[in-house]
């Protein structure tokens, strides 16, 4: 009696799983197939599901429309800001995890609050400042501004990670006369590597995806891929195929990273609130 019921509920569960998966994946399927359509096929009414694919959109966006350059810009910016965030964030996280000092709680609150601040609040003053400093349309301007969200991510995740390292290790090293810096560098940091890796991946994803700073601060030479994607939205002609080809090129790298870090993605996105 139990067996058929179990089988039926397994079936129901299987269907539910399939629906959930379809719900998540279908837009990507549509994105990729649209990117392989010519304009006429993309604008067919009703939409077509079977057609002869073409790589023309990719050829066009990569070689004629400078999407290739913008992807390289995105890569430079996202990698550099991530490296900088790790460089600055790891020691800070270590201090927050290990040392006791006045104002620690306030500092903590301040870091967390940054997660809430909308880029639109910062972008106009930053535009004016970058104009004064000659940083407009440079990678550096974006790399620095992206620290506003990458640095908090690194600090949170790594603080958590450092806390989980047994203190006995530090204390033993201390007795042997090692300096704090040495303990951090040689003992704790290697053990905290998983946290560093996860926060790096998240920093990279967030920087790669950012639009508003890129759109205002880097109009030309340093233009990143998301800003490039919106530049096809001319009211005169909406080239769906090209837009989707660019979108695919932008999204594929972050999806790969997200899948690599899938186990830790939720922890990162919730700033360590959920283990």
């Amino acid at each position, binding site marked *: 009696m139990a067996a058929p019921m179990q089988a039926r509920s397994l079936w129901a569960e299987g269907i539910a799983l399939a629906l959930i998966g379809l719900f998540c994946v279908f837009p990507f399927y549509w994105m990729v197939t649209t990117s392989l359509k010519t304009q006429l096929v993309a604008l067919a009414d009703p939409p077509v599901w079977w057609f002869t694919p073409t790589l023309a959109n990719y050829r066009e966006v990569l070689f004629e429309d400078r999407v290739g350059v913008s992807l390289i810009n995105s890569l430079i910016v996202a990698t550099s800001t991530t490296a900088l965030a790790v460089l600055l964030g790891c020691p800070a996280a270590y201090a927050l995890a290990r040392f006791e000092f006045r104002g620690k709680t306030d500092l903590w609150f301040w870091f967390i609050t940054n997660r809430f601040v*909308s880029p639109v609040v910062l972008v106009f003053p930053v535009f004016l400042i970058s104009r004064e400093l000659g940083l407009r349309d440079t990678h550096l301007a974006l790399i620095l501004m992206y620290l506003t969200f990458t640095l908090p991510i690194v600090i949170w995740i790594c603080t958590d990670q450092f806390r989980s390292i047994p203190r006995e290790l530090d204390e033993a090293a201390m007795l042997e006369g090692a300096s704090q810096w040495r303990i951090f560098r040689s003992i704790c940091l290697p053990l905290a590597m998983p946290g560093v890796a996860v926060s790096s991946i998240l920093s990279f994803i967030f920087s790669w995806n950012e639009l508003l700073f890129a759109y205002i601060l880097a109009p030309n030479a340093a233009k990143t891929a998301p800003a490039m994607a919106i530049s096809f939205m001319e009211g005169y002609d909406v080239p769906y195929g090209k837009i989707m080809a660019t979108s695919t090129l932008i999204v594929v790298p972050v999806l790969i990273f997200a899948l690599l870090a899938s186990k830790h993605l939720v922890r990162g996105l919730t700033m360590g*609130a959920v283990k």
Partner: protein
Amino acid sequence: MTLRVPRRTIAAFIGPAVAALAIVGVAPLLYALWKSFHDFNLTQLARQRWVGLQNYQTVLTDSDFWDAIGRTALLFVSAVPVQIALGLAIALVLHRPGLTFWKTLTRLSLVLPMATTYAVVGLLAQVMLNQKYGVINQMLGWVGVDAINFIGDPTNAFIAVILWDVWQWTPFVALVLLAGLSTVPPEIEEAARLETRSPWTVLRHVQLPFLIPSLVAVLILRTADTLKLFDMVFTMTRGGPGNATEFIAILIERVGNRQFDIGLAAAQSIIMLAITIVLARLYIRLFYREVS
């Protein structure tokens, strides 16, 4: 318990990060505050002058600003409950034992929407929701529903934004809640299942208490993201038609970037920041209490 170390050492560890964040995060805010007391329009720079609180007065009496705040709140209260309900359902399915391989696969697919570039999500909406060429309308046609004008009608456009927000963030909510479910000690859960056959009772009395932290986290983060929501709407509707999807970040971008009124945009930003900080502090005190 924690070590006593010289202040100099602490400063050396934490100073660079604090300085960096102060330069990129705080200095621009101070600059914005300063500009918010000016008549400062990029296309009228010859006219710039100190105007005191005039920009704030304009914002506080501007119905567009408060409408945008109201719209942002409305988006939050309509999208987040749906995300929590669907997310919980998904989490409960994934939490059940069996079909391990398929569940791992489903979990991987859940990771995809939340990592997708937000601007691309909006572009996808344009392509898929188009009244004529959109695949969603084609699918609705299969079940006998007439094509819906998603982008062109104010109410539909708002609903479309909700739907798309639900698509992108329900998986996130599901994964957070799933992590919460796994904190329920297995022996307690099993004992409960032996006592009652109603999954609802198990959820209500056994699992829910363990889910509270996850739910609070979801509320906090969804609040922050809704206040920040820009990319997806910008590429999908640009706030239109009319004002229908003009959320707070979209409004500020329009004032600063298309009216070039940086002074007014700064005042709006400062007020929005004040709202954000109040909410953030409230939430953080509520939730991150144990941290200190």
